């Protein structure tokens, strides 16, 4: 027997007409509308996120890539729109008053990547190109040079990559803050390294062959990191990157792996997206995560028990974060959602 579908709750709106000169009126108390754009990165683009949220919030209604949930306790009407393209992600970040969630890989600070799954190898990393380079590919986040662990990413996924030659001058402006510029080489700081023999064929052409003895920038002790040019082979997103985006959304929640480490310095630091009063909230993840956190995050936000319409979102977001983290801890997920002020 099929499960019984929950009935959509009726909304206010039944009103009386008035005749001319009649002083009577109707009153309707408006609910606050909170809109969330959930941007699905390339590797999550076919995940049924709305269905997962509905499992936790059965009263939510789904229509294609959008959903609605009305919290009478909060006096808030929540809507969700799923998007899968770079342009839509940019538009969402630039829309005042909304909540933007990114679900996908953080790419160590290179940024979100959009395209269609399945996307193995370079596609997983770079996105599936389209002629205008508007909707797919990496949404570049801002630092030209990013450190990538060789064992964890380059070998594992088999990408082609563009390492930074040791002739490139390193400084605070072109290096992601995770690159330990001030640390000595003995303690795992930045130093010149050679490309491992097995990876040489994966190195992209820089106008010169990868010569024996050519040196590149690297760092790390046990796990060697290479400094890569952040857009890998060629930028396909210029100029539509974070630098050309005027972030105006009310809250951003970046649920990709270790976004606290990889994206927080960019979004809060270099980009200067700050919290002020009841605007500019930002949430990040502290370690390697997965997409199961997305529905828990949204469902707990919907379940905040008190009225908070037309008030700051902070209490309800913090309620969600606390409940989310309890669940993540209970199941041994190994990561938490962190709020960044």
């Amino acid at each position, binding site marked *: 027997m099929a499960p019984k579908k929950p009935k959509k*709750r009726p909304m206010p709106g039944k009103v009386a*007409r008035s*005749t001319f000169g009649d002083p009577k009126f109707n*009153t309707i108390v408006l609910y*606050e509308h909170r809109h969330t754009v959930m941007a699905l990165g390339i590797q999550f683009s076919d995940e049924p996120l709305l269905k997962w949220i509905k499992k936790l919030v059965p009263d939510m209604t789904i229509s294609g890539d959008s959903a609605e949930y009305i919290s009478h306790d909060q006096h808030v009407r929540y809507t969700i729109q799923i998007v899968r393209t770079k342009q839509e992600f940019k538009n969402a970040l630039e829309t005042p008053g909304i909540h933007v969630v990114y679900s996908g890989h953080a790419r160590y600070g290179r940024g979100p990547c959009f395209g269609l799954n399945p996307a193995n190898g370079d596609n997983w990393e770079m996105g599936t190109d389209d002629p205008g380079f508007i909707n797919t590919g990496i949404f570049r986040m801002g630092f030209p040079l990013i450190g990538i662990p060789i064992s964890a990413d380059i070998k594992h996924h088999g990408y082609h990559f563009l390492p930074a030659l040791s002739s490139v001058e390193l400084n605070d402006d072109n290096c992601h803050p995770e690159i330990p510029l001030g640390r000595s080489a003995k303690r795992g700081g930045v130093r010149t390294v050679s490309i491992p023999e097995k990876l040489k064929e994966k190195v992209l052409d820089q106008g010169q062959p990868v010569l024996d003895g050519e040196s590149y920038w690297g760092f790390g002790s046990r796990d060697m990191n290479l400094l890569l040019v952040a857009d890998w082979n060629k930028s396909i997103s210029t100029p539509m990157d974070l630098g050309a985006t005027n972030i105006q959304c009310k809250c951003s929640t970046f649920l990709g792996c270790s976004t606290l480490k990889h994206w927080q310095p960019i979004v809060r630091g270099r980009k200067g997206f700050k919290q002020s009063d009841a605007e500019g909230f930002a949430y990040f993840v502290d370690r390697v995560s997965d997409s199961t956190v997305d529905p828990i995050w949204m469902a707990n936000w919907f379940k905040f028990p008190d009225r908070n319409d*037309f008030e700051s979102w902070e209490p309800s977001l913090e309620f969600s974060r606390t409940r989310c983290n309890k669940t993540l801890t209970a199941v041994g997920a190994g990561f938490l959602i962190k709020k960044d002020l």
Partner: protein
Amino acid sequence: MPENFDKTHPMGSGDRVVEQGECVSSIAADAHLPWKRIWNDPANSDLKAEFKDPNNPLPRDRLTIPDVATADFSKPTDASHTFTTVIDPVKLRLRLIAGDVAFSDQPFTLTIAGADAITGTTDSNGLIDVKIPPDAMTGTLQVGTTPHDDFIVLQFGSLNPVEVLTGVQQRLMNLGIDCGPAGDDGIYGHRTQHALLAFQNKMTLEPTGKPDDDTRDALKREHGC
């Protein structure tokens, strides 16, 4: 067995059965009559005495529609003449509240199928006061200026009298007090009881949880009709 707080209905004995969404104004427009001719017709006195408001009789109530009055005019046959039927204008008067304060000085757009969109700005009390087509049954009210601002689907003439429980529930819901998933089902269940208690507490009325006369009066006052 649920407790029944409603007055007896349907009322009236005329031939015209009121349908969902209709009121005396819309029926009058349909019959090409001024609404007062229907409302003040002695045959409709029972309904008038009970509900006191021509704009919210109940579905299934029965109205008597008086005959259309005829008039003789003497005009020359070698000229064209214009005769105008005056139909009483019908209005929507709607006060919007957001977060317990008037939704004042905010732009709105009211879209009604088959009619031009009505745009304007709420006044300092959050009031919208606009003419609508007499036969309009529904409209979509968009408030605010950006796509993620809210909209409400309005059902004109669907507000039942406060004397019946559905009318009580509809007013509670319009005032932002949830009556549960069943909404305005006319059944006095625990969700309606809790909604009434919430309203009574807010208005510092005796918390009976029942739609007593004081509560109905306060609802009518707060809702505006």
